């Protein structure tokens, strides 16, 4: 019978006393490095004693057996309450048979001494084999360390067994490690900015550092970052020490291996200035900013390494394709950057002394969705942080920023801008929420991270993989002034970092300064202000009102005022809820949001003529218009405005209304007044005239004849029968853009056709035929819906059909042919789908059922 290990009985109290001593030292300010080393020495010493004693009791010399430390314990980073990863290594199967029973007894004794043991047994031969489904074991083996027993086995393992097999498994392990790392980072939303981060596993946690060490080791890099003296490695060492201090603190506080830095423990850590040498007092939010700074260091280094390794795995074919693209772009535009391996790389660093080149590169990223490489970011950061390098054009202008914000992938540019500090340089208001933790039961991320995520959720709508975004994709694709929406998202929560009771008020104050500095127009500022002020309204309506009650929709429509705002507010709300945490936007909420959007959108298009302006009730508006048109009499302005649908006010600013009024006053001299203005990548034509048959068709026809693609249009009439049509069109052949002298000829052409001085058919000949010959990319089925219920005076006709050149002219002509008068028209396009709503009358009444049937037949024949 085996002798019991009686000499170990004293070891328990000794271990406990040692642990108490180490804890006391840690609480007294000892570094994490010292703490981990001492815990490791305690474990080593205890294990060696137990190992020796158990062998002695068994009467064995332990020949053919050795004990190794693996993983964190192997690399001498043993945290309080962490597992001891141990490997019993047998020289052969005979030794395994003899010593395997020792493992359970050994583990039990160590458990009794207060150690958490995680042990495994392998023969030398088994260590040679690659376990394809157990990469974690092979990775833990990279940190192996001899603890006790027959050292010759360990030497053999190193020199003969693993030296050969590690070379073979290197590629396998590197691939697996990259996969595991990607999965781990994705589990935490690929961001370091969690409100209650896991300091071990989350991005920026200690696992990032260890993964980087393993990757470098597997990639055969000789440089050991643990001892490298360069500046970056000093940052790394500081970050590892800071995070290790937190992890020790968490384990001690929880009395278990729990790595979540909760709000309560953040406050305690800040109170004792954990990991900080200076004696400055910091509140929890300030202390967490230090955490995020260190986490960013570790995460950035890991990602840069992963990116470099990923680049080398691109196929030869892809490299050749990329090289061709690069060669073309290099020679054609002389840019200081180019795309390489699906990343934007700097090709001429000196050029980046001009900040405009940096903005140009960021705009390219926002336009194409191709991100900047980490090396490019590092180069830009170097230039930005070395004031001795002369820099030019430091200030960004609103048009340049607007281009970045209004592109398809604004988040692809905003991420590096935030990492580089450029975003705060451009929008200092954003600083108040930089890495800001606001305690909240629902939010998972810091406020800046939440804001950037809202924008990324929107850009993901371009090609949604998320079914929640299905309904919102068409809105994102067609929404106007995305730049203002994105600016609103950047600013909507900055008030959370300001000393105000209501964060919305703070965010609006921030907009004041930002708008002044960026020189936003009053209309642009008003739009961003609306979105910030009402950014919670749609969510509140969905959750606290009955959205199927028409009065809810009417009340909500009164807040939003027009379709364009509704689109922007819906997208903002979708993104704002989605970015709270991965589960916040449930299918239930997304559906409710969509239902409210549809109901409100339909309310706008079906209720226009219900609510008409009575100018005498609009004293404030009259005053604003008269401020812009001081020469006008009040009575004239009233006469002009009387009877326009209220939507007219919602889609035009007082300055625009004053301009319309000026045109109106010239109608006596020239019966057709036009104005053409360039707008965002398009033109806007405004036309005033007395109503006349087929007017809408005539204007649409001239635009088609000149090759203009109508994207949107409104047609309104006032009580005196003056028609005000607005057409937003894209100049497909850049005729007006490249030849400004053509603009007067274009306007004359419109006036001549409307005044019957020139026929339309000769102009259109050829143009429409060419358009019809083109095969559309997406087939849109035509649908015609009549609605007699939504308006008291008009029949509504909604037409959905394939968009094509001259479409509005054809529809307008068909309506005119059977004597239908257009009271209001709302024209919109969504990709290749035309969505037109007409308020129609015939002989000043709704269309009879017979007339509706006739019109249906005529239009079906026209649109076929």
């Amino acid at each position, binding site marked *: 019978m085996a002798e019991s290990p009686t000499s170990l009985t004293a070891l328990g109290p000794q271990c406990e006393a040692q642990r108490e001593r180490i804890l006391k030292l840690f609480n007294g300010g000892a570094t994490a490095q010292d703490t981990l080393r001492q815990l490791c020495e305690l474990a080593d010493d205890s294990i060696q004693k137990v190992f020796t004693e158990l062998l002695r009791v068994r009467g064995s010399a332990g020949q053919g057996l050795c004990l190794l430390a693996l993983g964190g314990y192997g690399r001498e980073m043993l945290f309080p309450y962490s597992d001891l990863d141990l490997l019993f290594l047998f020289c052969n199967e005979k030794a395994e048979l003899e010593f395997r029973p020792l493992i359970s007894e050994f583990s039990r004794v160590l458990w009794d001494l207060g150690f958490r043991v995680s042990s495994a047994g392998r023969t030398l031969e088994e260590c040679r084999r690659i376990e394809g489904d157990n990469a974690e074991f092979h990775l833990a083996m990279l940190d192996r360390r001899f603890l006790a027993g027959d050292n010759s086995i360990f030497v053999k393992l190193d020199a003969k067994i693993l030296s050969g097999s590690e070379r073979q498994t290197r590629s396998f392990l590197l691939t697996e490690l990259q996969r595991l790392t990607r999965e781990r980072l994705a589990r935490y939303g690929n961001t370091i900015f969690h409100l209650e981060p896991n300091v071990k596993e989350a991005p920026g946690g200690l696992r990032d550092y260890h993964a980087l060490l393993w990757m470098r080791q597997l990639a055969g890099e000789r440089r050991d970052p643990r001892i490298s003296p360069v500046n970056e490695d000093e940052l790394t060492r500081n970050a590892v020490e800071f995070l290790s201090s937190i992890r020790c603190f968490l384990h001690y506080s929880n009395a278990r291996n729990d790595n979540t830095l909760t709000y309560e423990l953040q406050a305690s850590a800040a109170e004792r200035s954990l990991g900080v040498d200076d004696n400055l007092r910091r509140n929890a939010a300030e202390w967490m900013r230090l955490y995020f700074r260190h986490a960013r260091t570790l995460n950035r280094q890991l990602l840069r390494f992963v990116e470099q390794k990923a680049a080398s795995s691109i196929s030869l074919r892809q490299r050749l394709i990329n090289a061709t693209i690069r060669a073309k772009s290099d020679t054609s535009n002389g840019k200081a950057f180019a795309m390489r391996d699906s990343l934007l790389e700097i090709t001429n660093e000196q050029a980046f002394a001009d900040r405009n080149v940096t903005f140009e590169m960021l705009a390219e990223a926002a336009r194409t969705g191709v991100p900047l490489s980490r090396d490019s970011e590092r180069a830009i950061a170097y230039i930005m942080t070395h004031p001795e390098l002369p820099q030019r054009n430091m200030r960004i202008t609103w048009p340049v920023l607007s281009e970045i914000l209004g592109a398809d992938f604004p988040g692809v540019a905003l991420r590096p801008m935030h990492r580089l500090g450029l975003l705060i340089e451009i929008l200092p208001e954003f600083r108040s929420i930089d890495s800001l933790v606001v305690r909240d039961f629902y939010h998972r991320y810091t406020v800046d991270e939440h804001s950037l995520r809202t924008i990324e959720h929107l850009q993901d709508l371009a090609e949604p993989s998320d079914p929640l975004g299905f309904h919102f994709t068409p809105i994102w694709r067609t929404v106007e002034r995305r730049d203002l929406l994105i600016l609103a998202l950047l600013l909507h929560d900055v008030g959370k970092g300001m000393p105000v009771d209501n964060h919305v008020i703070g965010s609006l104050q921030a907009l004041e300064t930002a708008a002044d500095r960026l020189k936003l127009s009053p209309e642009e500022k008003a739009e961003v202000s609306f979105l910030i002020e009402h950014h919670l309204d749609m969510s509140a309506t*969905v959750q*606290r009102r009955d959205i*199927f009650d028409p009065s809810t929709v009417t009340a909500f429509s009164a807040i939003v005022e027009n379709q364009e705002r509704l689109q922007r507010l819906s997208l903002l709300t979708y993104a704002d809820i989605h970015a709270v945490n991965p589960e916040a936007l449930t299918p239930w909420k997304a559906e409710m949001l969509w239902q409210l959007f549809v109901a409100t959108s339909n309310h706008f298009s079906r209720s226009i003529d219900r609510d008409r302006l009575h100018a005498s009730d609009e004293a404030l508006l009259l005053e604003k218009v008269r401020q812009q048109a001081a020469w006008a009499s009040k009575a004239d302005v009233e006469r002009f405005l009387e009877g326009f649908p209220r939507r007219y006010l919602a889609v035009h600013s007082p300055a625009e209304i004053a301009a319309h009024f000026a045109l109106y006053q010239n109608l006596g001299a020239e019966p057709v007044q036009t104005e053409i203005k360039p707008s965002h990548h398009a033109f806007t034509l405004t036309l005033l005239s007395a109503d006349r048959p087929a007017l809408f068709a005539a204007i649409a026809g001239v635009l088609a004849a000149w090759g203009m693609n109508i994207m949107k249009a409104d047609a309104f009439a006032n009580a005196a029968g003056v028609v005000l049509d607005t057409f937003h069109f894209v100049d497909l052949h850049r005729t007006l853009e490249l030849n400004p002298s053509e603009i007067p000829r274009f306007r004359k052409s419109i006036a001549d056709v409307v005044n019957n001085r020139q026929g339309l058919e000769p102009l259109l000949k050829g143009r429409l035929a060419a358009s019809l010959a083109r095969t559309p990319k997406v087939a849109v089925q035509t649908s015609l*819906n009549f609605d007699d219920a939504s308006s008291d005076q008009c029949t509504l006709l909604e037409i959905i059909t394939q968009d094509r050149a001259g479409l509005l002219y054809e529809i307008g002509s068909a309506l005119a042919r059977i004597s239908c008068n257009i009271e209001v028209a709302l024209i919109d396009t969504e990709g290749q*789908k035309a969505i037109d709503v007409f308020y129609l009358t015939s002989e000043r009444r709704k269309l009879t059922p017979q007339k509706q049937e006739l019109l249906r037949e005529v239009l079906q024949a026209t649109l076929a």
Partner: protein
Amino acid sequence: MMKVEAIIQPSRFESVKDALVEIGIEGITVTEVRGHGRQKGHKEIYRGREYSVDLLPKVKLEIILADALVDRVVETILKTAKTGKIGDGKIFLSRIEDSIRIRNEERGESAL
């Protein structure tokens, strides 16, 4: 012990929750659900496409209570969730055999 399950209008949820907290009810489980009873769905046309909203959004509350509290809770829900229109929802009552607090393994009403 009884289980009270209430299916209510989402718009009434905040009021119902506040009223329940006011009478001392602290443990409520809330689920976003969809369904219909007599308040069938409706059809909505948006941009030429017809969307049928046949399953309407509702909120389901689940509360486990001591028998003595049931009447008061039901009365509170009725008072705050009722609008008088079709679609206000329903309340279901069922008996509960036992309850166990995981933290300390307490059982019965004291575990509520």
